């Protein structure tokens, strides 16, 4: 567990898997002796929010604390968007480039190369569609919900919509993007002929496994932190409407 008084250097040193989080918070290394809270303040990041994210990232069984209501959904959504950008602009191209280099120098048959190439292209397409759906429909809905909740007289049209839609529906249909990547790793380990360049092959498998872990955490964060909080807001707004 990371806490606010902890030295940020120690927090990271003991939990290197936190590193990918820093660009998403636009935080830079070189922490000196500053605590987690002090580093957050320097970068204008809400400390409670950072702690929730970091701890959820470290422990899959982590249950969000009561500090949840301390930050706005807007904060969380901009973090989610930064993460999406990281996947699309950094993580996916990085592993794709390595896979294509691996295939170029391999003795795989045309059929095998085609299988991996088509698979990855389709995967990228599904990935983009998934993120687009979230960014164009789900996230704007959440922001609107937060805005309406803060109003003294919420828009009746919005609250009417709320009676028929809940964020829980999104959660039910929330596909896991990491599953296909795990299949790809297994394909390389189990079914494809061995690659000559073992180092590169290992890097591909490492990248895939990092990405799987990151995507799992990301989905958990959406399902365990974002969705319950949004559902709570939905409920509060509906209760206000029910009250005379």
């Amino acid at each position: 567990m990371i806490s606010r008084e902890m030295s940020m250097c120690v927090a990271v040193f003991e939990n290197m898997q936190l590193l990918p989080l820093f660009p998403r918070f636009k935080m830079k290394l070189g922490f000196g002796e500053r605590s987690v809270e002090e580093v957050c303040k320097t970068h204008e990041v809400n400390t409670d929010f950072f702690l929730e994210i970091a701890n959820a990232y470290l422990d899959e069984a982590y249950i969000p604390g009561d500090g949840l209501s301390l930050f706005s959904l807007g904060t969380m959504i901009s973090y989610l968007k930064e993460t999406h950008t990281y996947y699309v602009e950094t993580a996916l191209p990085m592993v794709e480039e390595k896979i294509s280099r691996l295939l170029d120098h391999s003795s795989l048959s045309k059929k095998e190369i085609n299988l991996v190439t088509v698979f990855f292209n389709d995967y990228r397409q599904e990935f983009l569609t998934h993120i687009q759906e979230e960014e164009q429909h789900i996230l704007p809905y959440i922001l609107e919900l937060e805005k309406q909740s803060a109003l003294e007289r919420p828009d009746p049209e919005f609250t009417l919509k709320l009676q028929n839609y809940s964020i829980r529906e999104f959660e039910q249909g929330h596909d896991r993007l990491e599953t296909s990547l795990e299949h790809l790793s297994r394909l390389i380990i189990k079914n494809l002929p061995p690659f000559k360049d073992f180092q590169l092959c290992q890097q591909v498998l490492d990248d895939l496994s990092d990405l799987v872990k990151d995507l799992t955490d990301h989905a958990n964060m959406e399902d365990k932190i974002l969705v319950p909080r949004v559902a709570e807001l939905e409920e509060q707004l509906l209760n206000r409407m029910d009250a005379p």
Partner: protein
Amino acid sequence: MRFSGFILAIDSYLVRKGLISLLSRIQGVRIIREFATADTFQQYANRQDIDFLVINQSLFDQSSAVFVSHPGLLERTILLKEEPVTQMEVHNSIHLSEEKEVITGKIRRLMDLHVSSLSSSASSELTQREKTIVRQVSLGLTNKQIAEELFLSTHTVTTHRKNISSKLGIKSVSGLTVYAIVNNIITIEEVSLKPSE
């Protein structure tokens, strides 16, 4: 992968949080909501379906209306007792003195018993028929061709395809093909996959 949703209605903060910590370590469990009072729980229950419920005795006594409006829920409910129980009014109960393994076992049994009947938590294991269809998709057959081979309507094949996709979380033909290879449903040599445009 699909999850079993759990609602917790327990008035003791410590017991509730302790149980959440235990439950969230069980594969396939997802905590949907927690409630500390019968009022808030009932308000929620008035609007939502409930897969599984863990509730303590006093909140249970105050929430009988919920079980009337949710037929079948009683069988998917675990009653949390402070004392070991002898009476059989609720089949599933755990009590505070029980060990982690005992509680985990009871939760798992309950999930296994009901999980296939709940739409939101379909099992991710493919049936033999579905495996056959995954194989034929990987061989490059269209839904129409699969329907002809298996003497099914195209509509039935489409339904199977939808179920397969939601069980596996895979939509594309290439994704299903790789799934089929790593699960020994087909060999790479047999696969027929069109190159991307």
